[in-house]
């Protein structure tokens, strides 16, 4: 059986420059409104009072997310046409000859990975740059990151090296789709579901 692939992301290195997003858009020549890899800024904070002094205690960190080629892909489960399917290597792709553009996968995916191309009427999403990988190159986003915060590879190897964490705000509970994603958390990373902060750039996701 082929090795299943996944992404790695290091929150401690990401500066929120969004070079990954731009590299992805550039490589796939996306129309305005389509962005397979997006960087969420999660921010929040509290005040602490110590006598007469009030000290702010704030945090902010970035999470770069594309499709996680999940182990239990809800997008594949709900797709009525079987256009959305998972390959041997775990990569989830859309068969453009089958997709009816019903957007059910878009409703379902908690990472906003499937996005509609209004011109073709079909859904589109990240395939981890299958063409680049076939030539032995890294996916465009991984290659573009100046901080080397992104990685990709067989998920078993990534997990052995970096742990298994994927439950960080603003990401959903990984139990839902079991994303092939490993995160090295920022020192202020908030656990999923804690709701202590908010996404500061919702328009970019």
């Amino acid at each position, binding site marked *: 059986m082929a090795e299943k692939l996944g992404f790695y992301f290091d929150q401690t290195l990401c500066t929120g420059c969004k070079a990954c997003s731009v590299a992805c858009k550039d490589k796939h020549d996306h129309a305005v409104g389509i962005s397979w890899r*997006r960087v*969420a800024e999660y921010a929040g904070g509290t005040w602490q009072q110590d006598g007469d002094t009030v000290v702010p205690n704030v945090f902010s960190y970035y*999470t770069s*997310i594309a499709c996680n080629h999940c182990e239990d892909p*809800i997008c*594949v*489960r*709900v*797709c*009525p*046409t*079987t*256009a959305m399917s998972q390959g041997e290597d775990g990569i989830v792709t859309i068969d453009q*000859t*089958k*997709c*009816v*553009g*019903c*957007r*059910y996968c878009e*409703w*379902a*995916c*908690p*990472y*906003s990975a499937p996005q*509609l191309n*209004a011109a*073709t*009427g*079909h859904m589109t999403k990240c395939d981890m740059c299958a063409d680049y990988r076939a030539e032995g190159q890294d996916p465009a986003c991984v290659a573009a990151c100046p901080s080397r915060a992104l990685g990709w590879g067989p998920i078993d190897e990534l997990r052995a090296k970096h742990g298994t964490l994927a439950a960080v705000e*603003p*990401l*959903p*509970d990984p139990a*839902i789709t079991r994303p092939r994603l490993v995160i090295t958390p920022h020192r202020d990373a908030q656990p999923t*579901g804690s*709701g202590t902060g908010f*996404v500061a750039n919702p328009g970019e*996701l």
Partner: protein
Amino acid sequence: MNTHELPMIIFTVLAQMSVGAFVVLGVVQVVAGRRFGKESVDKVTDPALYAIGPALVLGLIASMFHMNDVFHTLNVVRHLGSSWLSREIVFGLLFAGLGFLFAVVQWFKWGSPRLRQALAALTALVGLTLVYVMSMIYYTLETVPAWHSWATPAQFFTTTFLLGSLAVGAAFMGALMWRRRAAAKSGNVFHVDDATRTMLSSCLKGIGLGAVALLGVEFVIIPMHISGLSAAGGAAGRSALVFSGVWFIARLVLVFLGAGLLAVFLYRYATPTAQVRTLAIIATSAFVLVLAGELIGRSLFYDSMVRIGM
């Protein structure tokens, strides 16, 4: 208000109304048939039966506009084993097909009454399954808290029976008025015999009573759903905010006027000696008000699609 989901709003509401009307017609057939005889009941229910067809077809056509590539529509049945959307299409077509078949055999009075009744029962069963399958499309999305709630199937079935029964009431009176006008045009005086009057008035009474009861159910589901979402916070809490403001109030008021006020009116006024014209106006306005209210309600339902995650 949500306009880009218009195809889905029209399709789900019309399909549910069709199923509800079909089931209510079946109940009328069985209950009234026993009291007034099958022949005279058929005379009243058949026109209403034929009115369901266009409504359902309109809904199915609207659903096509939801697909961003209509040319691939035939693919939507490929994932029956896993996708509720595939199942919805199959049950939608099955209900339409069986309904059409039943309308045809009823029109030509083919087969024994027994056989026709069995076909009607099967159609009703497939229709109710269709409503269940429709609700599962949304209920099973655990990533959308406002949909992943018992309120989704509860609301879908309430809409089904509420709109279905009021549509039947309106269709009964509409058919009667139409025949009256046709008679007047040809210079005859249209006479509704006493048995028909008695039967119609008791049907309308039943429909009025049913509508008020279903209104009560709806007015329990809505606040419970909203308070559950608010209490959960996060994405659920954000989706609860959709259920406020002008459109939400308009929805409540319309449904209340139609299924509350006018339905009570219908119940009290529907007697064998009542004015046919007045009854027709009450029954039709009740239906139109509730239809408008439910369409707005469904639009808010689609607006409440707030996903967890990012």
